[in-house]
């Protein structure tokens, strides 16, 4: 019975995190290498792989465990880093029809040809993007206060970006825990 409680508590903890570094999700020291991450993930799999709980949990509980496991899997994949999880900043500025969308002054621009959403990189000025990337690196290391600092720098260089403000508030919420 306690195995059931353990897995539910673990799942709740994982799913409850709003912003988190992959190291926190796997419960390993920040900066650990892929082998440490593999061992940690194997431990999680032995305890929480959804297949092990098909018959022992209610559908809602199973969904919770599956979500937690699926997020831990993403964390493991990120640390393994076979392919970069954060793609290198792409040359948005060479796209003539898109140049306006990242203009640092943030002046309204003409309609775009399609309704495609835009990415982080396009939601802020290029200078802010540099700080934002640094903030992401801090988060990846598990360095929350560093991330806060970098995000504040990013907002200073692009005060209009709602995206950055919400990112900051999420990280602040995590610091508060």
């Amino acid at each position, binding site marked *: 019975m306690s195995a059931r409680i353990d897995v539910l508590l673990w799942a709740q903890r994982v799913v409850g995190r709003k912003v988190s570094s992959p190291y926190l999700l796997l419960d390993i020291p920040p900066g650990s290498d892929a082998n440490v991450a593999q061992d940690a993930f194997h431990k999680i799999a032995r305890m929480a792989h959804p297949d092990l709980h098909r018959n022992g949990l209610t559908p809602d509980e199973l969904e919770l465990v599956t979500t937690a496991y699926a997020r831990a899997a993403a964390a493991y994949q990120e640390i393994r880093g*076979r392919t970069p999880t954060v793609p290198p900043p792409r040359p948005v500025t060479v796209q003539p029809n898109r140049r306006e969308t990242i203009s640092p002054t943030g002046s309204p621009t003409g309609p775009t040809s399609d309704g495609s959403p835009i990415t982080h990189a396009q939601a802020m000025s290029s200078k802010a993007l540099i700080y934002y990337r640094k903030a992401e690196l801090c988060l990846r290391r598990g360095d929350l206060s560093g991330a806060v600092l970098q995000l504040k720098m990013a907002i200073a260089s692009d005060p209009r970006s709602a995206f950055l403000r919400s990112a900051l508030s999420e990280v602040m919420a995590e610091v508060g825990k």
Partner: protein
Amino acid sequence: MAVALGIDLGTTNSVAAIATPTGVELILGPRGERVHPSVVAFPASGGVVVGADAKRYRLSETAHVVHSAKRFIGQNMRAPLVQLALTGVRYKVIEGPNQQPIVSIRDRRMTMPEISSHVLLHLKRAAERQLGTQVKDAVVTVPANFTDAQRQATREAGRLAGLDVMRLINEPTAAALAYGFGRDTDEVVAVFDFGGGTFDVSILRIHGELFEVLASEGDFFLGGDDLDRALAESLAAECQRTLEVDPRPHAALMMKLMMGAEAIKIHLSDNDAAEGEIEGLDLPGGRVGVLPFALTRDQFEELIAGYVQRTIDVTRQVLNAAGIQPHQVAEVLCVGGSTRIPIVRRRLAELFGREPNISINPDEVVAQGAAIQAGSLTGTLTAGTGMGAHDAVATAAHSPLTHGARPPPIPPRRPVLMDVNPATLAIHTAGGYIERLLDKNAPIPIERTRIFTTSRDNQTRVEIDCCRGEKRRYAENEPLGTLLLDGLAPRPRGDLKIEVQFRVDADGILHVRASDQTSGQRQEAHLQVFGAPVGKP
């Protein structure tokens, strides 16, 4: 007690098995056959004929016999490789709703899942006859490189056959499970799965009861059929030379040559040369011809060398992706009939520096693995967290694979399969590029959420185009479908927070959700994948 079937639904042949307390038992056909041809015939006399019996209609009613349905299931009719594969079949396929291929025989229109459901139903009935009980649950295997739509369509086939498909598992992973279950080792194995229609290679780490796929790669349009075709083409050239008839435009004639080629190929696996004649060729003008042939194994190997090279290249690629050197691989498992070909085994031995493991039955091991997983999921394989040794289905002593009689040091626990996402999944962002959400070879189930925003002021809808593939530009990848999020509150650009969540479940099926987080009205949209069965996930 619930009986759960493990089914290897193959391109050319299918195999079914169940896990019992004494080992894995195969489901036999009406004449005791262990493999069941994945062939469905709709003869002019009426009715539906499946399996070995259906194969007999191949010559008399070529256009009424559906084979290789697996090559089209869940496919987008417009994909170039599908168009190419269509040139290899003699039945009629048309485009149906949601760009899916539909079989058209006389006045019947049938989806590919319907065709495959006849094969599954055939196996289900055979199992019920053999076991004397109702069978409802099943684990069905699919090629590791099967796409989302192909997986959804396979599930649909199971549903149509009245089966509750508990899980789809990848064929190489199933093979590794049958090999490694109850061995309690920590080693890296390679599974080389070269079947009738598809080719897959997976690298796994077996760590006690964990089966972690490190990387998987494949070629969906490469298999024994291609080798037969290469040989049939050479026979066709021979036919033109000696009988002065080009058989290529004549469906029945080419089918006869394909069947001859298959027999020659199998003969050459055990012999250095094949000599004889193909009789009963119905030539145009009512003549009946006989085509003599003489072929050495070397000549055959030369004909298929390109295909074999391709399998070796893919194997190198997957080792790379897994970060594993060939010498670190403790065992190379051969799966699929095409691994019986000596040149294939020779090239594998060269690559890995060790002889591949041929003690397993390449035709049956996938179904055995599926049966073990089925037993594990229903819980019949275990008692509590551990499994008593006497309950063990495939401890080394009872192993379905003759692999030494080493008793396991501890009772095996329930196996845990940790499979991988077969392809990078991404969305189209402004500018024609993609944003990757989930990487190829990432462990599944996996979930990742990214926040996007609008690119212009007062934008009230976003279209989220999803694709699979490794290319940076959207247009160079394979489109999966478009998710529409409409009725957004008009806000300045960048002000809306659109959360896009990708989840790949344990079946390898993608679920995309998008929601607008800002406006408070949390609206969600789900993706309908091209080629997938219409109207259901």
